[in-house]
């Protein structure tokens, strides 16, 4: 089983040292990624999902951000221990990333072809001519019509969806084993979002790479991911396969999230059951469970000690003292 793990993150803690105090953006995150799977990381603004992704390639904004603890094991190498130079060999090569905003991720003064070829030449030491052929192939792969002609186009000549396709082409240029997608479709329209996600899924199956998709959209996760990590306040609160998360959530936050979403297929107009209150400030994290102040199931223990992420049943990890009660049915999810 273990050989199947391509990436393992252990107790990652990434903090930001700001004027206002220490922001504990990621505070104890552990997960693993299997070969060929799509892992969803779900959470709201400030849950630490993006920082988790950035930490993997150590792309956290310097000098305020710092990984203060933890291991990130990729092919047996701890990425946190690598020097800048060594890490660059991994970036865009074995692990690539695509970001939310396709408008700002491309350099406006270079042609698409230029930027694509740069990434190929850096990591593969190819001749320019071969790199060009490769670039055409890549554009074709991501569904850009007339790829040869488009090589000489500038980013502003592309629509948002097309730019995101180019970003994917760049990310795939060196056959990465892991593709990290940080809200890849949030800036795009619904019909374009569907195109991009389908494309990513298709390419993943073709190349047998793994995807980490970071999103706030539970629909996207339900469709494309096989396992999900739900994050809140810089920590994972629940981690399991999608069926467990969607049909038998055991953490009050996940349950609340499921109750607050509007569903296209809802039959009767039922009132939503939102989670009251707002997420806590990551600077002044409360003692105990971060979610306790918004939780309807809070007990005394919750405010004194943080519940550890525990395996409640087979491969279903939950960080809640009352998870067992949800599982056994003695506690209702309707709250």
């Amino acid at each position, binding site marked *: 089983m273990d050989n199947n793990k391509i990436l393992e993150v252990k107790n990652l803690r990434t903090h930001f040292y700001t*004027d*206002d*105090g220490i922001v504990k953006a990621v505070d104890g995150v552990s997960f693993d990624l299997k070969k060929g799977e799509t892992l969803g990381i779900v959470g709201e603004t400030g849950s630490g999902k993006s920082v988790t992704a950035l930490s993997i390639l150590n792309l956290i904004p310097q000098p305020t951000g710092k990984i203060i603890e933890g291991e990130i094991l990729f092919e047996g190498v701890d990425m946190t221990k690598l020097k800048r130079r060594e890490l660059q060999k991994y970036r865009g090569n074995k692990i690539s990333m695509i970001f939310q905003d396709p408008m700002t991720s491309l350099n406006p003064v270079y042609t698409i072809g230029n930027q694509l070829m740069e990434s190929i030449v850096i990591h593969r030491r190819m001749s320019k001519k071969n790199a060009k052929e490769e670039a055409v192939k890549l554009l074709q792969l991501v569904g850009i019509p007339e790829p040869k002609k488009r090589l000489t186009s500038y980013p502003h000549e592309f629509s948002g969806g097309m730019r995101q396709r180019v970003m994917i082409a760049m990310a795939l240029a060196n056959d990465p084993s892991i593709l990290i997608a940080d809200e890849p479709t949030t800036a795009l329209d619904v019909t374009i979002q569907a195109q991009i996600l389908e494309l990513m899924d298709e390419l993943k199956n073709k190349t047998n790479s793994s995807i980490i998709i970071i999103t706030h959209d539970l629909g996207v996760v339900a469709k494309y991911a096989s396992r999900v990590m739900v994050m809140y306040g810089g920590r994972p609160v629940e981690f399991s396969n999608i069926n467990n998360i969607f049909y038998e959530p055991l953490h009050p936050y996940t349950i609340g999230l499921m109750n607050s979403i509007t569903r296209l297929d809802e039959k009767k107009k039922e009132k939503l059951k939102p989670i009251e*209150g*707002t997420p*806590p*400030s990551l*600077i*002044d994290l*409360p*003692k*105990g469970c971060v979610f306790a*102040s*918004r939780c309807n199931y809070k007990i005394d223990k919750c*405010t*004194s000690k943080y519940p550890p992420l525990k395996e409640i049943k087979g491969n279903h990890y939950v960080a809640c003292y009352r998870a067992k009660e949800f599982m056994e049915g003695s506690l209702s999810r309707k709250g």
Partner: protein
Amino acid sequence: MYPENREPEAKEEATPELAESKYSRSSLYKDAWRRLRKNKLAMLGFAIIILLILIAIFAPLIAPYNPTERIKADSSLGPSAKHLFGTDILGRDIFTRVIFGSRISIQVGIVAVGISLTIGLFFGALAGYFGNIPDTIIMRLADIFFAFPYILGAIAIMTILGPGLINIFIAIGILGWAYFARLFRGSILSIKNKEYIEAARALGASNFRIITKHIFPNAFAPMIVYGTMNVGTAIIVEAALSFLGLGVQPPTPAWGEMLSESLKYINTAPWMMFFPGFAIVITVLGFVLFGDGLRDAFDPRMK
């Protein structure tokens, strides 16, 4: 910094209410001040400015002599206990004259920038808010002003108006407006299309109300920054004019005028030039450092 001595019990019961109250109840200006206080260089600049203003106000109390008093016996003396900065060719105490000279510099800096700012705000607001024809006319006019080198323009105006403090105010004040107008126009343009302006228009707010209540307060911060830095520029221009004999006339002590008079003795009595020159450098540095700090404080993303 966050209170470390807070009771742990209080932390446990962190309701959203409490979590929120950790933000100090403050406006942009208080926030900016809080950040400014942490910036050591800016605070150094601020200290220099305060010190300078105090010196200017209390000049007669600090200065050991009268600035125009000539002590014949003491002419052209180097720095000593009796004359800290030495004396000039006419036997006047340079320490005293440097102290009194600060009055001219500070006045010119503040009044001239005040004039530029007022004119600039008015025309910048017109151009930025109404656009079209007012914008074209005002900005082309500003272009004409940009075409002149600042100092050359000042010399030209002073030649027409004749020397004197009031005329310096006018010359420097009028020349500077275009910079303020352009800057203010820019920040108005960026604010004009914000949703809260649209919200006010949707409520039926008048143009006057929108400009004064919504745009001005939001567009003003960069003006303060630029104004502060510009005080330094105004002081240099004034010194240059006085150096050229177009500004403040002797025997009124002004740093530029002192530099000009000491030029002849640069080899024999370098202190005559050093101290007024040093005063100019320190003063300008003070305003630039403070202005720089202000900019960072108003816009923390710059860092």
